[in-house]
C-alpha cells in the first residue's frame, strides 16, 4: 500500500510490533488452552480423595496410577475398545465412500438433478423426527442389538458432503473432459481421476468422522444395551463416570498411600485415555491439510 521509502520503514517497524504482539497472543492462547488440559492430566495422576481438597494445578501432589488402573480394570473395556476401533475404521470408511460418491455426483456441472439432490441433503441437517420414531425405525430395520447401528445410520452427512463437493469443484473440468474423450465412464473418472486428487479432503473428512465415531456412546446405550458384547469404549467410560461414588475409603487405605479414587479423578483419567489416540492420529493426518481443504457452496 505504502510505496514510498519512509512508508516501508514504517511498515517494518509496525511489522516488528505485530510479530511481537502476535507471538504474545499465541503464547497467551497456548497457556489458556493448555492449562486446563494439563490440569486434567495432573488430577488424573493424583490421589482422588487428596484432589478433592483442591489446590492441584500443573503437578500432582500425591502421585498415583490408581485412577488409570481403575479405568483399565473395568470389565468389558477390552470388548469396548475392540468395538470402538472397529466402528471407527469401518464407520469412517463407509462414510467416506458414501460422502465421496454423493459429493462427486452433485459436483458434476451438468448433472440434471444437481440442485434438488443438494437441497435434499441440506434439509437433513436441520430436521429430525425425534428419538422415539428413530428408535422404532432402527428396531424394524433390525439395527438394534447389532453392530451396524453404529455405522449405517449417519453414514451420509450433508456437512461432509459439502466439504468434499467444494474441493471437487476446484478440480479443473478439463481433466474430466479429456477422460471422457478417452471413453471413460463416470465410475472410472471418480475412481481413477478425481479420488486420487482428493486425498487431502478425504483425510479431513476421515478425521471428522473418526473423531465422531470414537467419541460416541449414546447409540451404544440406546440401541445395544442388551448386548454387552457390542458395548463401546466410551459407553463403558461413561458408565464408569456415573457409577463411581468413592465408596467409603478407609483411613487405613489412605495412610498406606494405596490410593483412592473419586469420580473427578477417574473422570480425568478417562478423559486423558480417550484423548490420547486421537491426538496421536492427528499429526499423521495433519500433513494432508497442508495440501488444502476448503468448504464452499455453489456459485453460478
Amino acid at each position, binding site marked *: 500500500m505504502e510505496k514510498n521509502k519512509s512508508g516501508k520503514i514504517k511498515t517494518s517497524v509496525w511489522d516488528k510490533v505485530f510479530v511481537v504482539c502476535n507471538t504474545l497472543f499465541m503464547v497467551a492462547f497456548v497457556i489458556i488452552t493448555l492449562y486446563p488440559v494439563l490440569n486434567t492430566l495432573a488430577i488424573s495422576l493424583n490421589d482422588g480423595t487428596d484432589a478433592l*481438597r483442591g489446590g492441584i494445578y500443573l503437578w500432582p501432589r500425591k502421585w498415583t496410577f490408581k485412577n488409570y488402573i481403575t479405568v483399565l480394570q473395568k470389565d468389558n473395556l477390552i470388548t469396548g475398545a475392540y468395538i470402538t476401533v472397529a466402528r471407527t*475404521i469401518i464407520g469412517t470408511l463407509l462414510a467416506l465412500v458414501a460422502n465421496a460418491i454423493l459429493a462427486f455426483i452433485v459436483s458434476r456441472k451438468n448433472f440434471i438433478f444437481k440442485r434438488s439432490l443438494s437441497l435434499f441433503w441440506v434439509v437433513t441437517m436441520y430436521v429430525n423426527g425425534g*428419538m422415539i420414531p428413530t428408535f422404532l425405525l432402527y428396531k424394524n430395520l433390525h439395527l438394534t442389538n447389532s453392530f451396524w447401528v453404529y455405522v449405517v445410520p449417519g453414514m451420509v452427512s450433508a456437512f461432509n458432503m459439502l466439504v468434499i463437493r467444494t474441493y471437487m469443484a476446484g478440480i479443473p473440468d478439463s481433466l474430466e473432459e479429456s477422460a471422457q474423450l478417452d471413453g471413460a465412464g463416470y465410475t472410472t473418472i471418480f475412481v481413477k481421476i478425481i479420488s486420487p486428487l482428493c486425498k487431502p479432503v478425504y483425510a479431513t473428512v476421515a478425521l471428522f468422522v473418526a473423531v465422531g465415531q470414537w467419541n460416541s456412546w449414546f447409540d451404544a446405550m440406546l440401541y445395544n444395551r442388551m448386548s454387552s458384547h457390542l458395548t463401546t469404549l466410551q459407553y463403558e467410560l461413561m*458408565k464408569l463416570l456415573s457409577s463411581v461414588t468413592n465408596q467409603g475409603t478407609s483411613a487405613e487405605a489412605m495412610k498406606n498411600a494405596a490410593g483412592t479414587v473419586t469420580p473427578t479423578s477417574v473422570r480425568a483419567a478417562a478423559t486423558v485415555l480417550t484423548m490420547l489416540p486421537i491426538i496421536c492420529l492427528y499429526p499423521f493426518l495433519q500433513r494432508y491439510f497442508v495440501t488444502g481443504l476448503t468448504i464452499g457452496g455453489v456459485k453460478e
Partner: protein
Amino acid sequence: MKKKTVTGIVLSVAALSVFLSVKTAGSRDTKIKEFTAFFDVSENEIDEYNEIMELIAQKTGARCREQWLVGKSSEEAIDGYIASGEYTDFISGDVALYEAGALIPIDLYWDDYPNIKNFMPAERWDRFRQPDGHIYWIPQFDVVSGKSKELLHEGEAFWIQTRVLKWAGYPRIRTVDEYFDLLEAYVAENPVMEDPFHEGQTLENIPFTILCDDWRYFCLENPPQFLDGYPNDGSCIVDAGTQTVKDYNITPTARRYFKKLNEEYHKGIVDREFYTQNYQEYLQKLSSGRVLGMVDQWWQFAYVVNGSLEIMSDQGCGYVPLPITIDQSVRNQWHVKRGAELSAADGISITVSCEDIEGAMKFINDLLDEEIIKLRYWGIEGTDYEVYENGVYYRTDEQRNAVRNPEYSRAHFCVYPYFPRIEGMLSDGLNAFAPEYQPGEFFDALVPDVKECLTAYGCRNYVEMLGTNEAPGPWYPMYSYSDMLTTDSEAGRVWEQMNSVKREFLPKVVMTDDFDAMWAQYMERYTACRPEIFFAEMQQELERRLQP
C-alpha cells in the same frame, strides 16, 4: 497401492475379529439362568465374575445382570425402553411403565412364592394395587420384619462437627438460634484449622453451607417443615389433628428461618458460595474438613466424605446430627422409623419382555430367603464377618477395611441393592439383616471423634441424638404423590412453577440487603403461581389415603 492392500488387510481382520468376539461372548454356562435388570439410578457396577453373585447363582440357579443409569440423558434411556417396548427382565417399575403396559401383574403369579406374597400384610399390599386391581411392583426398601433397630439417620438434619460441640463442652443445642450462636462463637475463637496434609499450615473454617445444586436444592427449601416439628412429607405438611394439608413455604417459621439465614449470610457465617457451588464442589469442601455445619440428608454426603474425615478424626471433623427446631417448645420429627416411609409409588417389576416369569418370580423369592439376605448384606461367614459365642455377628478391623476397599467390594460383594430386602432383625432375633443396622457393629465401626461425642451425650448412634418417631399416619409420606405429578395435570404444572420461583428467590432472599422487600417480592411471585391448586390436589390425595 501397497498401502491400500495393507489397509484392506487391517480392515478385514478388524471386521472378522468383531464377529468372532460376538460369537464367543455368547456361550456361557447354560444351567444357570441369567436375567437382566435396569434401574434408573446411578450405582456402582460390580465385576462380571463376582464371587457372591456366583455363590447365589449356585444356590438359586439364577443370576441377574444389573444395568444402571448412565450420564445426564437418563430420562431418554427410559423413554427409549418405553418407545421400543423392549425391556430388561426386571426394571424399577412406576406408573409411567404401568400405563405403557410394560409390566406384568405380580399378584397373578405369587401363590407359589410365599416370600413375595407374605412380604407384607395384605392390607399393605393393597396400597400397591393399580386402577385395574393388580399389583405391579414390589417395594425394595422399608419393609421391616420384627423389631427394627433405628441406628442410622439417613435423612435430613442440621449436622455439626464434633470439634464444635467438644469446644463448647457438649451443650444441648435445640433451636436454630442456638445452633448459629454456637457456630458464631466457635468460629470467632477458631477461625482456622490445621491443614491435615501440610504440617504447620492452616485452612480457614467455613461455618455453614447448604447444598443447592439442581434438584438437590431441597435442603435449602424444606427445613421449615422440620423446624415446625413435622416429618418429611416433602412437599407439604400435614396437620394430623385436623387432617389438612398445609403449605410450609409461607409459615411464620419459614420467614423467620430465612431471615436468620440472611442475617448469618451478612455476618459471614453462611458460605458466600452456597448457592452457586455444584455437588462436586460441595463434597470437596466437606472433605477438606473445613465446614463446621450444614443442613443435608445423610446419604448425600456421608458415602463420599466420611473417608476423608476419618483422617481428621483427631481434629474432630466428623459430623453428628442435632435435634433442631425453631423453638424449644417444638418437638422434632427429623427421624421417622424406616418402615414408615414405605412409598407405594415404585418398586421392582417384571416386564412383559421377560420370557421366564416363573423363573423371575422364583429369583425374587429366593433373594428374600434369609440365607441369601445374609449373603447379600453380611457376606460369607469367616471371610466377611465373625460370630461371637453368643451368636452375635461382628466384623474385625481387617474385615471392615476390606469392605471399604472398592476393588474388593466389586469383585466380592453382590448386594443386589435394588431388589427387595427384609429389613429389621434376622429370625435369630440377635442380628440385624445388615451390619449397618447391627447396634454393636454400628458403634464399633464409627470414627473415634464421633464415638466420643455420642458417648458424651449418652448416645450410641445418630438416631438417639435426634429421637425417633412412629409414622404420623397412613398418608405418610406425601411426597410419594407429588413426585408422581406430571404436567398433564394443572396441579403438576403449578407444582413445577412453584419450584421454579422458589429456586430463583430463596437464594435472593438469603443474600439480599433488604430482606423485607425481597421477601415481599418472593411472596408476590409465589402466590402468582396459584399454589392453592396444588395444595387442593394434595388435600384430595390425603383424603384418599385416609380412606380405609
